[in-house]
């Protein structure tokens, strides 16, 4: 141990000499000059809901110009009515997707809850004041099963909910014996189930209480996600689960609660759907799962978690509604509605990928 000099003082070796002329500014992260496109990218990155809002406004204006009767109070409120169920399922789906998960079973939970509510109150004669809470509890339980499998057994949410989708759907067919419950029977024995089917007029427009409740739920979950610790934790868990855990967040508890709340929301959507559809059918809302994911994705929420907003989901659901209604009223074949929605999904995901590169 004769060389006691510090490494900094020792003589330079040949291969190191070139370094004297090289830049010592190793880490420069801030780009001093940005192109206009980069400015837009940064702006949209910090305000991800702007794109869906623009799409909604522009498409509404275009359909208003080309489609007959589009810009009537009746049609616009009809669109809101049409997106009521998908909107509520979309809230549930947004919560799950923000945690970097996905819930393929939302519609199955919803239909299962309606079958439980309808079966208990209409077929078994239980007072509907009891049947409704039991149905809601059933939804929360289903969500908790999803959440339990995701957290306790560390299974991927996609696979878990693909499985429970099938399981819940099988339970639907078993409990209902494949039979629908007719509207008249509900009216006769359990009118509470149709609570959210009521309509009222306001300035020539027809509103259902269900769509008002949907809008209130969006307000509620906007508040919860942005102004409570739980909401911040949902984002943190989806953004970087390890970082969230090391910061002292009980990530499993957050995930479990997200799936349970989502299940409860699905059950609530089921209650609203009985009012909207009028009957309880085991075959209804077969595409509800994917429609809810569509609304979330078009609304700018990232499938990779941690990024997005609940407002975006409302806008996303409305965009789908506007396209369906507008293309319908323009006399375009139904198949082009599917085409347009598909193109919107791909566009939304492409924009999300582009915006993510800001931080890369």
């Amino acid at each position, binding site marked *: *141990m004769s*060389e*006691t*000099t*510090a*490494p*900094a003082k020792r003589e330079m070796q040949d291969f190191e000499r070139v370094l004297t002329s090289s830049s*010592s*500014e*190793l*880490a*420069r*992260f*801030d780009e001093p000059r940005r192109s206009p496109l980069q400015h837009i990218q940064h702006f949209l990155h*910090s305000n991800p809901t702007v794109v869906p809002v623009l799409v909604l406004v522009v498409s509404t204006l275009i359909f208003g110009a080309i489609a007959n009767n589009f810009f009537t109070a009746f049609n616009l409120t009809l669109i809101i009515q049409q997106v009521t169920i998908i909107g509520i399922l979309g809230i549930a789906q947004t919560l799950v997707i923000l945690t970097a998960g996905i819930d393929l079973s939302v519609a199955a939970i919803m239909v299962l809850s309606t079958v439980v509510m309808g079966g208990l109150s209409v077929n078994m004669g239980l007072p509907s004041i009891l049947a409704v809470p039991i149905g809601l509890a059933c939804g929360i339980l289903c969500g908790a099963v999803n959440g339990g499998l995701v957290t306790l057994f560390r299974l991927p949410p996609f696979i878990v909910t693909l499985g429970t989708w099938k399981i819940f759907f099988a339970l639907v067919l078993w409990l209902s014996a494949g039979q629908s419950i007719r509207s008249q029977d509900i009216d006769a024995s359990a009118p509470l189930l149709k609570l959210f089917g009521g309509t009222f007029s306001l300035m020539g427009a027809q509103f259902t209480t269900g769509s008002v409740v949907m809008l209130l739920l969006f307000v509620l979950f906007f*508040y919860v996600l942005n*102004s*409570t*610790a*739980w909401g*911040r*934790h949902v*984002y*943190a868990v989806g*953004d*970087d689960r*390890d*970082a*969230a855990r*090391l*910061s*002292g*967040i009980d990530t499993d508890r957050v995930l479990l609660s997200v799936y349970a709340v989502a299940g409860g929301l699905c059950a609530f959507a089921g209650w609203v759907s009985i009012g909207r559809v009028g009957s309880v059918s085991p075959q209804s809302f077969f595409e509800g799962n994917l429609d809810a994911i569509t609304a979330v994705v078009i609304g700018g929420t990232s499938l990779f978690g*941690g*990024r997005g907003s609940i407002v975006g989901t409302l806008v996303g659901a409305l965009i789908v509604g506007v396209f369906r209604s507008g293309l319908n009223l323009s006399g375009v074949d139904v198949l082009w509605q599917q085409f347009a929605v598909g193109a919107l999904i791909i566009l939304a995901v492409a924009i999300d990928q582009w915006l993510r590169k*800001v*931080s890369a």
Partner: protein
Amino acid sequence: MSTTIPSQNDLASRPTAGAPPVTTPVTDPVTPVLKGRGLVKRYGSVTAMDHADFDLMPGEILAVIGDNGAGKSTMVKAVCGAVVPDEGTLELDGEAVLFRTPIEAQAHGIEIVYQNLALSPALSIADNLFLGREIRREGFLGKYLKMLDRRKMHDFARTKLSELGLTTIQNINQLVETLSGGQRQGVAVARAAAFASKFVVMDEPTAALGVKESRRVLDLIQDVRARGMPIVLISHNMPHVFELADRIHIHRLGRRLCVVDPQSVSMSDAVALMTGAMAPPPAAEAVA
């Protein structure tokens, strides 16, 4: 109190080195902030920590160095709750403690700056500072609506960041992913310094940074020490260790080999001790 570790000789010194028998005096006129004795952690047949001792004194920067696989990270994890030792005792300010999780250690006023920073990139600086310990509004809004007190959190965040001279961060609502590596480190250090009441552990705080940014972070670490907060610094960067540390804990083969004074030991000696090329210095040179 003086502790002798008899087996240290045959572990550390080579037969040819002919070093005198070594004792590492751990005389404590002052109560250590954290004192670990005889810490053991086994993973199956592997003993990652073999009766390791650890002392952190008030107000000091204690650097922990050791070769890869020497078990220094296991020991530091045991100190901050990420690993539960199989044997041994920990005393925090003279009182026996046991941390089963990092959150329990956090509750005792121990904060860790992880190498990967443990920040949430998509959240703002303020959100990150309070992640896991958000402040709620008082009264009805906080109690029943669980509303967060953003103003209080923002004021606190702004105060803490400017106390540490992180004034380059203008907007505490800025998302962490838009910050540079050094700024992120600054946020992580500020978070630890703001909430620690006992000490802060920093794991390789400069490993991912460039020259200029490292400089900034080293200054920041000294600022934190100047405020009286003891720091455990884990680093492979010898110049940084020698610049900052008041004492250097050299870890070898799962235990503390010795604690040296950076003023009296050269960097290459420290490396030699770490790798076993040299026997620990006699007791007189070791710093308690």
